[in-house]
Structures are given as structure tokens and as C-alpha cells.
């Protein structure tokens, strides 16, 4: 299934990456899909060959979440603590990977806005420093990097 809605990525400040995407569903359903383990397990990070073997969510301020995926290369886990929970529109939590490729915790902010039966979801990740954020952006979160990918893809084809 291919969506007509594109994933937009921007960098409003030195330490942030913002992803925005519209979903063809009312907000309460999108919020459920984002916060209920039985639904999260069906979409988050479960690309071919990967499954979620741990998905625990205590969606309260001070509550924790824990995700573990199992893939061909082994397990990958992450988790954090909820700092703000406003159903069904806003969640703020910390994010830390078990084997982190960046230092420290990042702060995730999830905001859902419904209009005309559609929901715009904005996720903001606030990193500890600009350097950390830039490394992540260069990892492919920014659409602006697409151009450099194209160049790199050409280079790789030529090798």
C-alpha cells in the first residue's frame, strides 16, 4: 500500500528534527495505533524479517515504555519515560537506544491535529547537541538529503 501523503522532514532549530505526515483517519484512531501495544507491534519497525518481541507501554506521566525488535542481526531495544500525556493529542517522552549510535537521551514530542477526518502527525526529536542531530539527519531522516543519496547511489553504481 502506497500513501499519497509524503513524509516531510524539517530542522527548525540546531538540535531538532521534525517529521510531519498526514494520515487518512480520525485522531483517536491514530493515537490508538501509536500508543496501544497490540497496534504498535503491527507497524513500528516491523519491516521484513523484523518483529517486535517486547512492546510495553505505561502511558502515564512518569510511566515507561520499552520496545525490543528481533531481526536477522539480533535484538535491538529502546525505551524511555513519558513526560507529558494528553490524550489523544500530545505525548512527550525520552528516547534511548540500548546500543546507541548517539550519546545521551533524545526527547520525542508527538502532536496530532485532526482536520476534516484526517490527522496530521508531527513528531519532533530533540537531540542533546547539534552534532548528534546532524549525524542522525545525515542518516536519512531529511528529505533534503535525497539529492546526496542520488549522487551516492550513482557513485556506488559506478564502483
Amino acid at each position, binding site marked *: 500500500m502506497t500513501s499519497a501523503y509524503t513524509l516531510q522532514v524539517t530542522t527548525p532549530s540546531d538540535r531538532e528534527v521534525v517529521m510531519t505526515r498526514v494520515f487518512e483517519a480520525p485522531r483517536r484512531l491514530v493515537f490508538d495505533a501509536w500508543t496501544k501495544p497490540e*497496534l504498535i507491534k503491527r507497524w513500528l519497525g516491523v519491516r521484513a524479517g523484523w518483529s517486535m518481541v517486547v512492546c510495553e507501554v505505561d502511558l502515564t506521566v512518569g510511566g515507561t515504555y520499552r520496545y525490543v525488535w528481533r531481526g536477522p542481526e539480533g535484538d535491538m531495544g529502546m525505551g524511555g519515560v513519558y513526560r507529558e500525556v494528553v490524550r489523544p493529542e500530545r505525548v512527550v517522552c525520552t528516547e534511548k537506544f540500548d546500543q546507541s549510535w548517539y550519546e545521551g537521551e533524545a526527547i520525542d514530542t508527538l502532536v496530532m491535529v485532526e482536520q476534516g477526518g484526517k490527522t496530521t502527525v508531527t513528531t519532533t526529536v530533540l537531540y542533546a547537541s547539534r552534532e548528534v542531530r546532524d549525524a542522525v539527519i545525515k542518516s536519512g531522516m531529511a528529505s533534503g538529503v535525497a539529492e546526496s543519496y542520488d549522487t551516492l547511489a550513482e*557513485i556506488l553504481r559506478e564502483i
Partner: protein
Amino acid sequence: MNADRLDATFAALADPTRRAILARLATGQATVNQLAAPFAMSQPAISKHLKVLEHAGLISGGRIAQSRPRRLEPKVLADATGWLERYREIWEGNYQRLDAVLEELKAKEKKRRPKKR
């Protein structure tokens, strides 16, 4: 690939001149003069870019004399791009799977609560 190396690699790839240099080196090794030729840039400026690429392990050679040809290190580049390609695909894939889940939730809801006329 360790994190420091990856950071250096992404920093190196962030610049269009350096990507152009890599593209040129992909066609074969070249000296600083040859690499500088297509750019409106001084040789020291090009050398600076080459230093960044060397530090990232993306190219090798040229440590001693300026004339020593540089060459691309394909494996380092492939490691970095493979890693970032995977990451980009994750979010696009996540949201497409979420679309499918939402379609199902909507259909279920419609069944449960038929619209009143």
C-alpha cells in the same frame, strides 16, 4: 563501523564539493590538480576537502606529496550509505504500515457504529 567513523563519514558527505570529488574519484584516481580543475576553488581549498575525506576514510593516498593521486575507498562509502539507506526506509515503511492498520481500524469502527441517517 564505529560511531566516530560514521560521524566523520556523514560530516564528510554533507558537503556538495566533497560529494563531487567522490564522484570524480569513482571514475578513477586523480591528483589534487586534476580534482581542483572543475571547481572555482584554490588548490589549498581542495586540499582541505581532501583532508576531511581522508579523515573519514572515504579516500586514501596523498599523504605525502600533493601530486600523489587520491583514490576512493568504496567499502567505507558503501558501509555508510547502506546504514543510512536502511534508516530512511524504516520511517517510510513504518508510516505505510500504519496506513494499513488505520484502514483496518476505520473499517472495524464503521461496522460497529453504522452512521445514523
